[in-house]
């Protein structure tokens, strides 16, 4: 329709009631590398493809899964530099919350603050929305939680979700495979199988990244050796 005439300005609604820049941001996310998260009965796992532009890139220096607090981790699909900025802001906000209330920030609160930052960038002058969707995994007093945050600033709690290139296949696969009483180890296997579904080339510990958090409430990224073990179990 006349949508394209409104697609240049972030802060102008199109006649059909959409903010076209945000749609474009979601497209940027949709062409990013696949990432997914699964909430198990006793923890959460998040995983992503780690396809590097060339074999010359030192894959140990690339960390797509980051921790925001000792018990909250995050993965993304979309633009890496935007992710870095959001991670930095979120860590600072989590620290400020802790300084003010003297308790570790609950997962929902942190997600809300990240979403608020992302929304700010959809209603300000001279900025563009973030080109990432985030999957935030955490374990606090309310148990295991998994949230997805979109460039618009909207967030949803998921039992299992996927984002990026292969999202529809991955979500269908997850819908079939997900059970409410899954254990964390089963969830890791399911995550690997889901990544394998749309994977171009041979899956190995060098081109995927997995982060888990269990009842110990300590988020950690699995080492390549641990990923190899899980891959062997899945074969």
């Amino acid at each position, binding site marked *: 329709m006349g949508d394209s005439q409104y697609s240049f300005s972030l802060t102008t609604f199109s006649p059909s009631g959409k903010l076209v820049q945000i749609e474009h941001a979601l497209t940027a996310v949709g062409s990013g590398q696949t990432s997914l998260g699964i909430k198990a009965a006793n923890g959460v796992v998040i995983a992503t493809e780690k396809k590097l532009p060339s074999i010359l890139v030192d894959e140990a220096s690339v960390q797509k899964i980051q921790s925001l607090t000792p018990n909250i981790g995050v993965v993304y699909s979309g633009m890496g530099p935007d992710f870095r900025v959001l991670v930095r802001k979120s860590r600072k906000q989590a620290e400020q919350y802790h*300084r003010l209330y003297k308790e570790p920030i609950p997962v929902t609160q942190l997600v809300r603050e990240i979403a608020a930052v992302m929304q700010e960038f959809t209603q300000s002058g001279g900025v563009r929305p973030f080109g990432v969707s985030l999957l935030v995994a955490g374990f606090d007093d309310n148990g295991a939680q998994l949230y997805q945050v979109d460039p618009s600033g909207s967030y949803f709690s998921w039992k299992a979700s996927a984002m990026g290139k292969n999202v529809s296949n991955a979500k269908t696969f997850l819908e079939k495979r997900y059970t409410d009483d899954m254990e964390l180890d089963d969830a890791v296997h399911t995550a690997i199988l889901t990544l394998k579904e749309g994977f171009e080339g041979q899956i190995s510990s060098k081109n995927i990244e997995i982060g888990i958090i269990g009842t110990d409430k300590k988020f950690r990224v699995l080492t390549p050796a641990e990923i190899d073990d899980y891959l062997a179990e899945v074969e």
Partner: protein
Amino acid sequence: MSQAAVEVPPKGGFSFDLCRRNDMLSKKGVPLPSFRKTGTTIVGLIFQDGVILGADTRATEGPIVCDKNCEKIHYMAPNIYCCGAGTAADTEAVTEMVNSQLQLHRYHTGGRESRVVTALTLLKSHLFNYQGHVQAALVLGGVDVTGPHLHTIYPHGSTDSLPFATMGSGSLAAMAVFESKYHEGLTREEGINLVCEAICSGIFNDLGSGSNVDICVITKGHKEYLRNHHMPNPRTYFHSQGFSFPKKIG
């Protein structure tokens, strides 16, 4: 355009607006309200495996003991602790702020262990910026990749790096003990005993220090916070059945 007085939001830093009011009040004979100082004896020493910090536990408000068992050894990082003397609120606030900054720094540098000199520089820059108005005198100690470190930080922002150090109103009493008994290569037991002796010297000879001894031992990859390690001032007399005063009738 009327009254072009623009309200500029404060850019941080100390706001000296009320100093004129305080001056005027004190000229009229109104005394400044007293604030809670920690009085204090705080010490630190380097022993063969790392650093030992010690502190007393009395907090004073003028002539009154307002806290008989306060905590003066503050956590900065898993491998760094800081003792604080001076105004209690200042030492608390400044150590918590730097603790937070160190935590963020660790996230941004991939979980690398914080260095003592990092904490030192963050603290001294903050104190220098406030030109001594933040009255915190600190003994900072820790063990990092470069080895054990012990520093003293003065309220105006100057620092010293020493093998043994004391601060606070009881510092002279404690330093007397250190100067006569400190030597290099102390073992853990010897170090703890020496720190305990120095703090006790402050507790018994300085009115601003008292109650119990807190100790913190930091070695490579390990730390032990010995809260109330030594309690030389127990409450001796208790009425075994308690008291029951009759209620006033009429």
